[in-house]
């Protein structure tokens, strides 16, 4: 398997990377103390690492090419192309069992595990909903939104400031936060959705930064960089709750929201609107020719995505009881995007898995959390290069002609 030719190629790649990473990885200087630190061990790591990775890279490329050749010859892949999760969920016998046990596990979770675990799980669930919201925009409608965190910030600040200035409670702020975020989505969407996709990415990125910078600098309104503190936790018919109970309550709230979101997005996907999004993602011109109002369809996707971000923003403010502009940097947007891309754009189960993996893994592998953002970047690149459909890709709606010519039921 390892021919001489391949070894030579990997060797050259390894030499190239040693050269490439030399100044950044090996040398570290202190310009004040005037000392230079040479870290030769890093060079060895880079050499070995790139040598091995070049084999992996080539192997993956070969596999990808073989796959794409396979896909070429007809529809025999139709059944085998699905992952086992899809097949389980398509079968009602398994589906009910799986969903039932998952629900049971979710309900007893806070009673079995500590408060700390529940808190982490609540955060992960928030990212699940954020991922599903962004999935509408990126996965279904194919609009790359890099400022998703802006809508999240709008939601969080809506609650924080409404409480701060007017004493508005959580349940009133929840819909207001969502609607205000959706309104921002529409306001931003009207001018920029006419543009091609890559411009949209930059404008949304700029918008995300603008919101953060305004919140940081407009001290009189948002209390500036120090943020808003003492935001009340979610209330339950005015009952006073201890910190632990409030956390468990927030957890259940998130579970409900996740279930509602999954249900909503799933129904949405199969609706006329959802199909219009997917069509728009695939080919705008053909879509317009079929009489779909491009602007309106995109705007709905954009504002719906924003709505979800706003809702989660309100819950975020209530859960942490403190928000500052620092919670809403581009990195947040990038994390949510990684979730959607890793899980599989357009796939609900994929996004859920993506969120749980990307949020829970760094929490439990504390040693690795330093490398988290590095890994996220690498994940985005590797997923795009080797597996653009994500770990659990969405299934295209296809009709399989069986004996009774019945359309195949789809769950994705």
């Amino acid at each position, binding site marked *: 398997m390892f021919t001489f030719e391949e070894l030579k190629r990997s060797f050259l790649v390894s030499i*190239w*990377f040693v*050269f*490439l*990473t030399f*100044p*950044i*990885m090996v*040398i*570290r*200087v202190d*310009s004040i103390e*005037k000392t*230079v630190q040479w870290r030769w061990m*890093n060079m060895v790591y880079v050499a070995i690492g790139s040598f091995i990775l070049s084999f992996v*890279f080539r192997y993956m490329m070969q596999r990808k090419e073989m796959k794409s050749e396979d896909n070429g010859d007809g529809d025999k892949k139709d059944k085998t192309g699905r992952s086992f999760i899809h097949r389980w969920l398509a079968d009602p016998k398994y589906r009910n069992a799986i969903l039932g046990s998952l629900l049971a596990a979710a309900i007893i979770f806070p009673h079995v595990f500590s408060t700390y675990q529940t808190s982490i799980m609540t955060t992960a669930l928030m990212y699940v909903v954020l991922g599903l919201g962004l999935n509408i925009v*990126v996965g279904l409608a*194919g609009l*790359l939104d*890099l400022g998703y965190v802006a809508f999240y910030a709008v939601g969080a600040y809506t609650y924080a400031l409404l409480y701060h200035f007017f004493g508005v409670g959580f349940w009133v702020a929840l819909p207001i936060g969502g609607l205000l975020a959706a309104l921002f989505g529409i306001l931003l969407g009207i*001018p*920029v959705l*006419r*543009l*091609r*996709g*890559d*411009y949209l*990415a*930059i*404008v949304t*990125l*700029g*918008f995300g*930064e*603008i919101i953060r*910078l*305004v919140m940081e*600098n407009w001290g009189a309104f948002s209390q500036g960089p120090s943020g808003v503190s003492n935001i009340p936790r979610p209330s339950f018919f005015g009952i006073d709750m201890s910190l632990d109970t409030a956390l468990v309550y927030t957890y259940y709230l998130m579970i409900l929201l996740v279930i509602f979101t999954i249900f909503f997005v799933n129904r949405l996907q199969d609706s006329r609107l959802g199909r219009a999004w997917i069509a728009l993602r695939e080919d705008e*011109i053909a879509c317009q020719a079929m009489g779909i109002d491009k602007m309106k369809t995109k705007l709905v996707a954009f504002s719906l995505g924003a709505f979800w971000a706003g809702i989660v923003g309100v819950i975020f403010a209530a859960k942490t009881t403190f928000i500052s502009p620092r919670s809403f940097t*581009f990195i947040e947007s*990038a994390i949510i*995007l*990684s979730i959607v*891309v890793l899980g599989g754009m357009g796939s609900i189960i994929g996004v859920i898995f993506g969120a749980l993996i990307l949020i829970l893994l760094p929490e439990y592998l504390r040693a690795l959390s*330093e*490398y988290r*953002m*590095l890994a*996220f*970047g*690498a*994940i*985005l*690149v*590797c*997923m*795009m*290069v080797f597996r*653009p459909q994500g770990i659990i890709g969405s299934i295209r709606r296809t009709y399989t002609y069986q004996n009774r010519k019945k359309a195949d039921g789809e769950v994705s």
Partner: protein
Amino acid sequence: MDYFIELLFSGLSRGAIYALIALGYTMVYGIIGLINFAHGEIYMIGAFTSFIIATILTILGFPGLAIILLAGLAAVIWSASYGYTIEKVAYKPLRHAPRLSALISAIGMSMFLQNYVLLAQTSDFLPFPQLVPDFDFMEPIAHIVGSSDMVILVTTTVVMICLTILIKYTKIGKAMRATSQDRTMAMLVGINVNRIISITFIIGSSLAAIGGMLVASHIGQINFYIGFIAGIKAFTAAVLGGIGSIPGAVLGSVVLGLTESFATGYVSSDYEDVFAFSLLVLILIFKPSGLLGKADTQKV
């Protein structure tokens, strides 16, 4: 009046830096139609490389001019290598994939490089040595125009002239223009398109590296995050001028630099970045093709 001229020059030198970075965006966009999100990071790596080399040379006791030249050369070499490698690893496999895929890959690359420098070097702001000395002949106007502003302007002008000659009058430039007009056709007439794309990345990255070194020595500190904001602003400049157009990128950069300089000088410095982003949103709303760009008609 002095204040006005001071702002004018600071705006121009700002614009010159943006131009050096924006050219990389616009050239890559012109050739493969991709917003190279990692371009800001190349600029940051250029600044870091020149910082490291300059510090070592200072410790070894080299004379000032040699430090500038060698550090600049090192920055160019390494940034160009990074640009080349990034293209090969993250963009080339996606050349026939949907645009969104390549864009996401570029964002991933940008995050990866940022954190790579963060982990390998430091998250602190590093004091960058002042490479450009205060010239004696600049003494009478030193309170208005700094020496490093002047060096930035002169260097950028020289680089622009070289680039124009390269693109207009050499064979490589001709091949680049052909590739950006029609890649398939360029292939048919015997242009090695892969090579041209690599060269584009190398040139763009070299320009960014020069910009990185100049601005770092001008501002006096660097950290791993400088590429992000600089990248977005340079992109704004490229879009303002009309993305894909090389004179447009320069014009857009100068306009953006002046806008920022005057806005921060006369209005408020807290919202420096907000001005740039608002300008970007405004251009995209009212003239998405940019000042010098051609309107983009799509064939069906």
